[in-house]
């Protein structure tokens, strides 16, 4: 006979302010199977948990219902409490009286009645709960890191230095990401490549890191500790073992006028190319869409000149498979192009550029070797306008959020410009200056006060070209929205940082959530910032939301430490919420008829065939069997089973029916 204890939490005023908790507890006393019921201010607190433990001992409870917050919040807490008091943790259920009741309804009788209903519902369920024990599964101690920007580099090095294997995959021909494109970094103005390239080289040389560039994730199957990653290595059209990276092919390639991605299309590259001189690995790839041979069937000049015969035109894409224990997603972000802005000319003015393009102009390794020259005619701009918040914080453009890094890099750009063009005029149009961070506000003040950058608070309604000048029409809202017109030689738009356009596809491959802006969603906004809702998959950097380098690095190390924690064990314990096929006495053995409908719908290939044999070794019956290591507990098989022979622990047919019945029979 079940002996259930009911514990109603006030959560301070959060539940108690709306729900009459005492009344709920009193009503629960009369529920079938309930032998003890009480309410308390904070059930999750130490005294609250002690109260539960004492009640378990005193009233010999076999099951517990805690009416408190969402089980997604505190279910592990109370299950632990119960198991410490000698009741199996899976005999404890939570009624969600906060998120699903007190926070969404007004104070009153109806709300208290609903709370009572919810408690009765879970009492109904818990009466049918069975003690379960966690499942142990082995861990593959190799991490997969997706994305080779600073986030992926940092995570990979942290994990590899701790002695575990890392597979780092990068979509581009080289690692380095956006950070490798930057000229200087705020707030110190130290050279980005100088601090990044040694780390890139370290990645390439690390014995624990397998670096796969020009590659994308094809699929990820399995679960925490036991993922199978299939990786597509796009054909580079060279034999990497033979290639020495001498660069002969790139100098001889006749197709030289392809706008280069690394220089944000301000400079050109060849069809066989290394994206930038410090690239890692420093070996070329052939861009098939622009290569004359691939497009027209003739040329093969690179092949002729290659001293090691490393060119392979017929190289196919290759799929490789790796066993993975945990994944870090570090795919970063993109910036909107100037063509996103109708009012600034839909990208038709050559001298209206993005912040990332300005980085290339300011970079010593960029197309102008660090001189600020405008793209249209190569002249040094005498007057330059920077627009912060180009697209960001603009619901009309579909981007409601702040891109976070623009205030700082715009100040940096204006300073770099003033340091290089002493007599020039720099204007910044801004909404607010958001410079929260160590030495950040001091930095923007320096731009305004020492480098005399003219900051105008207001937005720009239009930019148009006239007589070789860009007319920037805006308003100065600190002067009563007075119209301002600047005749500029060049305009830099701090365009919004957005998620990659294939971010949603990747999220679906990984089964992680993504938000309305296609940024990946963390498991908890405050307490689990690097975890996702899918166990074993972690986030680092700007793929989660726009962030700067220090934050990205901190997050990357955070993700690495989570993985190291995971890899410190040889076995993982998993929730025993898995499906099971029933067993019966002979001659039936199981009600399973062996139709294997369950097998066809299982997304995890967790259903196996089991042959039941007699003593002579002859097969009497073939039935389904669930591999608890593979089963993730979705229960799709349960709903499909025609003979009700398969059930899921923790959400069994009995439990769910009783839960619904208890809920509805309140009269």
């Amino acid at each position: 006979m079940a002996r259930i204890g009911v514990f109603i939490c006030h959560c301070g005023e959060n539940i108690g302010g709306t729900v009459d908790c005492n009344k709920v507890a009193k009503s629960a006393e009369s529920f079938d199977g309930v032998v003890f019921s009480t309410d308390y201010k904070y059930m999750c607190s130490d005294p609250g948990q002690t109260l539960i433990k004492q009640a378990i001992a005193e009233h010999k409870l076999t099951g517990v219902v805690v009416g408190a917050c969402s089980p997604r919040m505190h279910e592990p807490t109370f299950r632990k409490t119960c198991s410490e008091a000698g009741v199996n943790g899976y005999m404890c259920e939570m009624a969600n009286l906060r998120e699903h009741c007190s926070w969404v309804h007004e104070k009153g009788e109806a709300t208290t009645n609903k709370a009572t209903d919810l408690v009765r519902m879970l009492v109904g369920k818990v009466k049918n709960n069975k003690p379960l024990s966690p499942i142990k599964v082995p861990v593959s101690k190799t991490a997969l890191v997706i994305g080779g920007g600073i986030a992926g580099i940092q995570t990979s090095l942290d994990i590899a230095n701790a002695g575990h294997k890392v597979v780092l995959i990068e979509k581009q021909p080289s690692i380095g990401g956006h950070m490798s494109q930057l000229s200087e970094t705020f707030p110190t103005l130290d050279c980005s490549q100088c601090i990044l390239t040694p780390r890139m080289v370290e990645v390439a040389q690390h014995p624990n890191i397998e670096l796969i560039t020009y590659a994308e994730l094809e699929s990820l199957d399995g679960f925490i500790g036991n993922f199978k990653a299939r990786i597509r290595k796009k054909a580079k059209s060279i034999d990497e073992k033979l290639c020495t990276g001498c660069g002969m092919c790139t100098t001889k390639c006749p197709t030289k006028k392809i706008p280069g991605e690394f220089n944000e299309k301000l400079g050109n590259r060849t069809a066989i190319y290394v994206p930038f001189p410090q690239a890692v690995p420093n070996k070329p790839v052939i861009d098939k869409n622009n290569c004359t041979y691939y497009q027209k069937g003739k040329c093969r000049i690179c092949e002729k000149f290659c001293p090691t015969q490393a060119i392979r035109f017929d190289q196919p894409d290759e799929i490789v498979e790796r066993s993975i224990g945990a994944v870090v997603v570090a795919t970063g972000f993109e910036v909107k192009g100037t063509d996103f802005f109708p009012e600034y000319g839909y990208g038709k003015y050559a001298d209206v550029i993005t912040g990332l393009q300005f980085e290339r102009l300011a970079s010593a390794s960029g197309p102008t070797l660090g001189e600020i020259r405008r793209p249209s005619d190569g002249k040094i701009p005498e007057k330059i306008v920077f627009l912060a918040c180009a697209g960001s914080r603009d619901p009309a453009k579909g981007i409601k959020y702040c891109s976070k890094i623009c205030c700082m890099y715009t100040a940096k750009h204006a300073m770099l410009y003033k340091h290089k063009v002493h007599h020039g005029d720099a204007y910044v149009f801004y909404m607010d200056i958001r410079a929260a961070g160590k030495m950040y506000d001091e930095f923007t003040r320096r731009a305004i006060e020492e480098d005399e950058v003219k900051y105008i608070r207001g937005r720009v309604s239009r930019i148009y070209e006239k007589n070789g000048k860009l007319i920037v029409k805006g308003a100065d809202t600190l002067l009563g929205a007075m119209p301002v017109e600047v005749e500029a030689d060049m305009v830099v738009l701090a365009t919004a940082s957005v998620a990659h356009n294939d971010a949603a596809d990747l999220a679906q491959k990984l089964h992680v959530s993504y938000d309305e802006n296609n940024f990946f969603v963390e498991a908890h906004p405050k307490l689990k910032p690097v975890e996702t809702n899918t166990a074993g998959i972690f986030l680092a950097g700007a793929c989660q939301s726009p962030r700067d380098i220090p934050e990205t690095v901190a997050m990357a190390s955070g993700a690495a430490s989570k993985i190291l924690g995971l890899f410190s064990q040889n076995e993982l314990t998993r929730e025993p919420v898995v499906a099971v096929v029933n067993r019966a006495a002979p001659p039936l053995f199981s009600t399973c008829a062996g139709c294997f409908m369950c097998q066809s719908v299982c997304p995890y290939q967790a259903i196996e065939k089991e042959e039941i044999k007699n003593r002579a070794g002859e097969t009497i019956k073939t039935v389904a069997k669930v591999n608890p290591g593979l089963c993730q507990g979705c229960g799709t098989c349960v709903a499909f089973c025609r003979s009700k022979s398969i059930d899921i622990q923790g959400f069994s047919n009995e439990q769910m029916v009783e839960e619904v019945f208890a809920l509805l029979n309140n009269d």
Partner: protein
Amino acid sequence: MSKNMSVAVYPGCSLNGSSREYMESLRAVLNALEIPVNEVDDWNCCGASAAHNIDQDMAVALPSRILAQTAKDGYSNLLVPCAACYNRLKHVQQEIKTSPEIRQKASVLLNQEINTPDTIVNILEYLQSTVMPRLEGKTLKPVSKKVACYYGCLLVRPKGISDEKQIEDPQGMDQIMASLGAEPVSWAFKTECCGAGFSVSNTTTVARLSSEILIDAADRGAEAIIVACPMCHSNLDMRRREIEKYSGRKFDIPVLYITQAIGLALGIPAKKLGLQRHFVPVKI
């Protein structure tokens, strides 16, 4: 041609008064191409530029009646050449389509059921879909001039109501003019406001805004400005003297309706296109 297939035209007050040459030239072009012109029966003022600033009910009721009149006669398409009327009618069409309350209110005010034609097209959409295809194969007298196509602020806005994709840099008029042999200049004031709303109350603002438009067109070598809005036309043409006084510059750039430009290309006599009515002479 059944009524459902054909288009009804709502001229509006301006096209019967200060900008009658717009309607004259539209008629002349459609006649030359043998396209029937069906005016909406017993139409009324749409209330543009005044009503929606003063009285929300009137702002909905006036256009609602026009839409109802059009639908009553079985037309599913309505052509509205005046940009201001187009803007109001398109607005109200959306309001009564999406809000049963507004539709009900208009119905009570007008004491009749409110229906609307399926589509409302502006002059550019109409010319591109119906008129331009009929010019193919015809011998045209090319308009070999540099022209500034001026859309104004009402024709292609606002986003969500207008069907225009490039609101800040529309191309429809430029394409039409290019196919007539003209050279559209790339300029910055295509969709800027001429100050029409202030044409009575604050003429200095009109002079300032309109002179900015004229200056940019002139500086970029335009020999004519092409418009599709009676307000734009009257500000740039009739108020030329104020503009010149304000800006201290002389301009002899004529302002033509797009329909007049097409009429000239078709060889229709200037008088039939109402060119003699302009303040700034059109020298052909």
